[in-house]
């Protein structure tokens, strides 16, 4: 009997040592077989899908911007636009016809030639009558388009309903705008979400749901060849686990870094990337009724809030103080514009002049964190409540979940409330339209602010061609809305990412996209 136990024990020891030796050797095998230039990028979730007509999430965009391209693209580090699949374009004198000349000798990753037919096909599937209701960005991107025509094999013409310059910025977006291989669209009917084929620097290889998605270098790419041979997107839900994975060497780059993990990452020699995101976190006054239909009272409240202190305290250095509704990298941003400064005495004086020294107001807010406000609406509202108490204004706070909250704001409940916006196309109009009185009904103009001068300038801005004259219009708009104080801009939340010191050329574009063709290790 004893011998039997001895035998079992010995077998156990043997199996264990075999397993452990195996474990040790497997990592060496892994390094030997892996290609030297594979960049692993960890993000929090799978893409929703890879057909740009049907998705609107950032996780999908990060993958798609490396596979697909549009006619136009953004410049590095800003939302100014430059040619991509189109080499140049002309706009008719009435501003309604956009004619694009297309790049020669470009092929999709499946060998299909890129030409006017491909562009027409892609636009037509997203405008009536072919567009379907579940295309989240079709009406935003192609809403202004009446028709698209092929002029020649390498030239197409869009006809718009009216002059609308932001249309160019729409064509640079990763959602709705990219040009897909028409052959692939026909071939993978209904399964295109998992079989993307574009003209971009990387070709789709495979997608293991909830695990990873692999891209490889597109050897026939028309532009500058990508530096890495493969890019792997790894899906790791928990922020802190992603950070641990980076430190342990399981990944090269991570996005969505938790501020709490930054010290740990830096002490492990990892590099932390921080930049302003394309968003705005703001406090809005309900301008449609008393008390805040009076601009003087809005001014008084604005003077009462110390935004520098508030942003520093709430966001611990991972958001920047916003002075304009526009993030600084958007063409037309005016750095001279400042909201009313922190001045308690002036705030009290203004209230006294208006005979409202004992003002009582109702604040409504949302209970959950938002992309532009990581601490959630409740904390923000409480901080503002404290500032208001210092000037003798009594405020109550009602907090709701996001869905209910949106209805409350739309119904005009609350005198003061919190909201935010994540930009779509990087055009100034995309942010400043939130002050358009025509958007009160759609609830985009949440403050229900109405100023004919602002409406007129917005119309003018949409009609002017990109350039200094157009930027001047937006600067003027920022001055007016800042003076009228329908909003008090609070902060721009920052994009936080981290990467291994081996990695070079990594950055996050202001739109949130990560372009891998320049990334190396």
């Amino acid at each position: 009997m004893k011998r039997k136990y001895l035998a079992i024990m010995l077998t156990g020891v043997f199996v264990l040592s075999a397993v452990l030796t195996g474990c040790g050797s497997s990592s060496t095998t892994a390094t030997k077989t892996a290609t030297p230039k594979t960049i692993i990028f960890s993000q929090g979730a799978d893409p929703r899908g890879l057909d740009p007509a049907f998705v609107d999430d950032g996780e999908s965009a990060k993958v798609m911007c490396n596979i697909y391209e549009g006619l136009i693209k953004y410049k590095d580090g800003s939302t100014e636009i430059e040619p991509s699949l189109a080499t140049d374009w002309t706009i008719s004198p009435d501003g309604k016809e956009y004619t694009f000349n297309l790049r020669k000798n470009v092929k999709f990753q499946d060998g299909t030639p890129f030409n006017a037919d491909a562009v027409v096909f892609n636009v037509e599937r997203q405008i009536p009558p072919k567009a379907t209701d579940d295309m989240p960005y079709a009406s935003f991107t192609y809403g202004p388009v009446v028709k698209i025509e092929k002029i020649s094999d390498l030239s197409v013409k869009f006809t718009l309903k009216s002059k609308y310059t932001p249309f160019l910025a729409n064509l640079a977006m990763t959602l709705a705008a990219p040009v897909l291989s028409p052959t692939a669209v026909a071939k993978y009917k209904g399964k295109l979400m998992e079989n993307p084929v574009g003209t971009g620097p990387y070709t789709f290889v495979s997608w293991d749901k909830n695990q990873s998605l692999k891209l490889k270098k597109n050897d026939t790419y028309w532009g500058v060849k990508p530096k890495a041979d493969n890019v792997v997107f790894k899906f790791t839900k928990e922020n802190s686990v992603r950070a641990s994975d980076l430190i342990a060497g399981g990944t090269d780059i991570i996005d969505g870094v938790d501020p709490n993990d930054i010290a740990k990452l830096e002490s492990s020699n990892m590099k932390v990337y921080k930049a302003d995101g394309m968003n705005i976190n703001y406090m809005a006054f309900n301008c449609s009724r008393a008390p805040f239909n009076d601009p003087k009272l809005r001014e008084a409240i604005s003077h009462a809030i110390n935004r520098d202190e508030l942003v520093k305290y709430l966001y611990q250095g991972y958001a920047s103080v916003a002075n304009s509704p526009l993030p600084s990298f958007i063409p037309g941003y005016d750095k001279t514009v400042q909201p009313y400064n922190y001045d308690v005495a002036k705030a009290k004086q203004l209230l006294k002049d208006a005979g409202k020294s004992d003002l009582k107001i109702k604040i409504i807010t949302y209970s959950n964190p938002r992309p532009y406000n990581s601490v959630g609406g409740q904390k923000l509202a409480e901080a503002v409540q404290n500032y208001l108490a210092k000037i003798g204004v009594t405020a109550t706070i009602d907090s709701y979940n996001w869905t209910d909250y949106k209805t409350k704001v739309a119904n005009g409940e609350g005198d003061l409330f919190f909201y935010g916006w994540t930009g779509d196309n990087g055009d100034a109009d995309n942010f400043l339209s939130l002050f358009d009185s025509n958007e009160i009904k759609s609830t985009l103009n949440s403050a229900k602010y109405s100023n004919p001068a602002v409406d007129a300038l917005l119309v003018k801005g949409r009609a002017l061609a990109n350039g200094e004259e157009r930027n001047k219009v937006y600067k003027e708009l920022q001055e007016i809305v800042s003076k009228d104080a329908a909003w008090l801009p609070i902060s721009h939340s920052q994009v936080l990412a981290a990467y291994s010191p081996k990695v070079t050329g990594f950055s996050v574009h202001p739109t949130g996209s990560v372009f891998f063709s320049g990334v190396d290790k």
Partner: protein
Amino acid sequence: MVKYIIKRLLLLVPVIIGVSMLVFLVMHMFTTDPAATILGQHAKQDQILALREQLGLNKPIYVQYWDFLRGILHGNLGDSLMTKTPVWNEIMARFPATIELALAAIIFASIFGIIMGVISAIKQNSIVDYICMVISLLGVSMPIFWLGLIFILVFAVQLQWFPVSGRIDIGLEPIRITGLYLIDSLATGNMPAFFSALKHLIMPAVALGSASTAIIARMTRSTMLEVVRQDYIRTARAKGLLERPIIFGHALKNALIPIITVIGLQLGTLLGGAVLTETVFSWPGVGKYVVDAILVTDYPVVQGTVMMMAVIFVLVNLLVDIIYAFIDPRIKYS
């Protein structure tokens, strides 16, 4: 026996109807509008209405429920609202990962649980007994989420014994036969993949199995204590049999029935309840899939997955009942 199995299988019908009704009502009455979620921040009211119409969400709730039930009867769980892919395919792609993790966890929990339980029972009230019971108390009380993070910090980041998360090193995935990486890699003789999969499996399996280990250990201890006081054990000892054959040959064999019940129930729970472990270790299983779907109100995914889990739970229990009959000849089903 066959009659019994058929009877039990027929009982699945009311279970499926009950579960489907419950999950359908909960999803449709207490969650947000998926049309608004799909369309995002530019959603206009008329667009949302049109999409609701297209998705069939404007029909009366009993009509929607009937459509859903009819789909199930045809073996069609519908398409995901978000990814537009068939729910059945998505579940099947993830299910092997869940099975592999649950099996590894239950094997770990059974081996260690029974060993700890037997030792505690033999050495009742000794220091070894106390140590085993404190360990199992810790196992039951420690939240898996926390335990998982601690494992990652200690064994993956500090000691670097195991990878932080995932199921296998990227690029080493074996050819799919069963979807269980350990089996597929062995079957194809792909040893690097086998060891990589094993290394990835150990931490999540131990974390997931920790609570079950504790439950099994406590169950084993108490039944063993009961059994060793029985007359036939005293007789065996009086005959002069050695202690080991008495414990393993007589006592443990007789104590196994309640232990197997617990193991069976635990396996059922592990198959459906690995949500937290899957989240912490980024294990690409069904648990994580359903949680992500709940967050975006993807009805078909949640409904399909919950139904599937319910059926599996019932089947695992049936299997345990059948195993009884083999272990204990006194049990007969008619």
